[in-house]
Every structure is written in structure tokens, then in C-alpha cells.
């Protein structure tokens, strides 16, 4: 009787066994698409690659390349985009994405060499935008804005003007200002607190030196004079270096703003339906 009961429970487990295979191609694809749409790109790639081992599919190859591009694994993205064949329906799109990846990874020279002979507006936009990041000579203003939509031209021209005439400040001028009036060079660079402190430090030690000399305390007079001299010259030096740092900040903010703007506009390329 005991054996019959055990056998009954054992056989009963088959009644609820899985009917469809979890690892069927269709299920893997659904899971991979889910991961992709959830922006879990790396895991979606491993699922798509499982499918590619079973059958060749250019949609999957394109999505793998897009996934690598999204996680900024630019080398692999470039390799995958360039692997898509001319016969594929994704060839044109993958070519654009290839150049976008080159742009994203900062390979501007390679991009400019490849795009200089292409006439299509999408490519021309990428080419012109790449000039905003390099020291190459910019085309004239009218030609530069021509490939862009009318609504965006004003923004693009603002970046163009900033590139052409960056709002740098002169290190020589700030140094000279600090030589004339301690701290004024720093104030010119917007460092008002540093400027006032430098003025106070230099003038305080100068006064202390003067006061001690006038009361015949020569040792203290020379000591404060030395300290005052170093605060004074240190401030001139600091004003020059602060101008260099100010200019580096101008470059940094220009690049960061431009990069953010282009990412929001998807580099003026048509949006991709796969990522929603």
C-alpha cells in the first residue's frame, strides 16, 4: 500500500511538467527583446548571440551593434556595424550608426576623412558637427548652418560662434592687473574672494614691514617685507595660472554643453525604433 502511494505521488509530478521548451528560439528572442527594451543591453547581447548560433539574422546583428553603442563599448559597436553586409535592409542605417559611433568615441579625424566626400545631408551634419570639436578650420557661417533644420540653426550657430571666438580671458592681462593692484587680476577672472584675500594679505604685510622699519625694528621689517614680496609675486603668478584654468573651464563647459545638446538631438540622425 505504501509503495502504491509513493508511486502515485511520483507519477503525479509529470502531470504538471512544462509543455513548451523554455529555451525555444521564440522564447529566447522575446526575453532578449525584453532585456533590450529595459536597457539591459549587455544581457540582451548574450541572448541575441545564442540565437545567432542557431540562425543568421541581420536584425539581431544590428541590435547587437546598437546595444554595444548604447553601453559605449564603441570598439565592439564599430566592429558589429561594419560587419553588416551591403545586401541587408539595415545597411544604410548601420552606416549612419557607424559614423555616429565614431563621433561618440571622439575619432573625429577618421570621421572627417570618411565623410568629406559624402553629399547626403545626414552625413554632412555629422561632418560639420565634428569640426566643432577639433581645431580644423570651420566652414563659413552660412554654409555651416545650411544642412541643419531651420528650428535648430540658432542653437548650432551659437556653438559655432563660441568655437570661433571662445570667451577666453587673457593670462597676460590678469597678471598685469595683479602687478598694478594685488588681487585685481583674480577679480577680473571672477574670483572675487581670492582677489580680496590677496589684496588684504599683500597690503597687510607691506604695512607691517613699513611700520616696523619706521620704528627701527629692522629684522621684523625685512621679515614682513619678504613675506609681502612673496604674497605679491605669488598673486601675480596665481593670476596667470588662474586665467589658464578659467580658459580650460570655458573649453570644458563648451564641450560638455555641445555633447549634451547633440545627444539630446540624437546627432541629428533619425530616431531608432528599437529603443523605446
Amino acid at each position, binding site marked *: 500500500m505504501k509503495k502504491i502511494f509513493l508511486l502515485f505521488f511520483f507519477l503525479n509530478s509529470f502531470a504538471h511538467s512544462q509543455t513548451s521548451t523554455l529555451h525555444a528560439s521564440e522564447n529566447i528572442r522575446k526575453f532578449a527583446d525584453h532585456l533590450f527594451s529595459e536597457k539591459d543591453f549587455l544581457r540582451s547581447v548574450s541572448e541575441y548571440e545564442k540565437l545567432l548560433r542557431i540562425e543568421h539574422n541581420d536584425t539581431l546583428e544590428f541590435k547587437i551593434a546598437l546595444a554595444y553603442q548604447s553601453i559605449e563599448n564603441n570598439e565592439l559597436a564599430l566592429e558589429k556595424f561594419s560587419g553588416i553586409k551591403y545586401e541587408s535592409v539595415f545597411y544604410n542605417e548601420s552606416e549612419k550608426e557607424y559614423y555616429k559611433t565614431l563621433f561618440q568615441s571622439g575619432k573625429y579625424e577618421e570621421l572627417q576623412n570618411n565623410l568629406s566626400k559624402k553629399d547626403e545631408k545626414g552625413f554632412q551634419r555629422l561632418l560639420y558637427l565634428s569640426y566643432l570639436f577639433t581645431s580644423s578650420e570651420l566652414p563659413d557661417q552660412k554654409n555651416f548652418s545650411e544642412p541643419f533644420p531651420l528650428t535648430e540653426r540658432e542653437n548650432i550657430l551659437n556653438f559655432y560662434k563660441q568655437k570661433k571666438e571662445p570667451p577666453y580671458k587673457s593670462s597676460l592681462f590678469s597678471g598685469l592687473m595683479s602687478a598694478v593692484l594685488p588681487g585685481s587680476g583674480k577679480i577680473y577672472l571672477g574670483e572675487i574672494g*581670492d582677489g580680496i*584675500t590677496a589684496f*588684504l594679505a599683500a*597690503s597687510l604685510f607691506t604695512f607691517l614691514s613699513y611700520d616696523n622699519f619706521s620704528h627701527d625694528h629692522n629684522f621684523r621689517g625685512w621679515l614682513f617685507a619678504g613675506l609681502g614680496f*612673496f604674497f605679491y609675486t605669488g598673486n601675480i603668478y596665481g593670476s596667470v595660472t588662474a586665467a589658464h584654468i578659467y580658459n580650460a573651464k570655458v573649453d570644458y563647459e563648451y564641450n560638455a554643453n555641445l555633447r549634451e545638446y547633440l545627444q539630446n538631438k540624437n546627432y541629428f540622425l533619425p530616431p531608432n525604433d528599437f529603443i523605446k
Partner: protein
Amino acid sequence: MKYVFTIISLFILLSMNLYAQSDWEKWGKAENDYKINENFRNRDYSFESDNPGKFIIKSLVNGYWFFISDVDGDNCPFRPSCSAFLLDAAKETNIFQGSLMFFDRFTRDLNIFKQGKYPRVKSGRYYDPAYLYTLSKRKIDYIPANEIVTSE
């Protein structure tokens, strides 16, 4: 002229009130860490230097560390600290340029309005390395203010 020194002293004295503790902060929970900072403990007191100028600077800094800083505590709001900045500055450039860099740094340290102008290290101190001030534009690696630098 007679009152200039008094006015300046008064200004410095009164400006302290700007950062005086407000009442509610006094009773707030303090996140204290009583461990001694490893960098502070493992200071390099050696006199190794490749020229006499750097030897003089290292001797002065060693003296300052041994007699003042180690006793007074790790109080500099910057990283590297002002004394370590002087050593780095002398290593990066020379004794004279290093001294100018130090006096500029010291002036910036005296500035009571320096909050929010520098990137920070994990401990919250301002990150301000010497290589930014060597007059070499190539060496300047701009980091936005208040960004946490994880290298230290």
C-alpha cells in the same frame, strides 16, 4: 593710515561670524570617524632630494610636520595639504616657482569664501593638485567644482 590695520583686523575677525554654528546644527547627529587618516600617519619624513633647493624645502616641511602639524592635527581643507602642495610644486617645477605656487595656494586657503569652487575628494576636502598651476596648459585637466574625485 593709522586705522587701516584695525579695520582689516576687524574685517577678518567679523567675517568669522559668517560661518558660525547655527543653533540646530549644534544638536544634530555628527558623523564622526575617529580613525587617524592613513595618509596623515604615513608621511614621508625622508630628506631624499636631487638638488639643494628641494632639500631645503623638504627640511622646512619636515620641520613643520614634526613640530606643528603632527601635534595640531590634519586641519588643511585642501588635498594635497598646503605643505604637501609645496613639496609637489617644488618637484614639478623648481624652488622659486614652487614657492610662488605655494603662496598663491596659501592665499586661496585664507579666502573664507572658497566653498563650492573646487572639486572634492571622498573625505570632503577640496582637491587642488599642484600640476594645475605649473603654467603648462597641457597639464590642466579641468574638473568641475564639487565633483568627487575618487583617486584619493
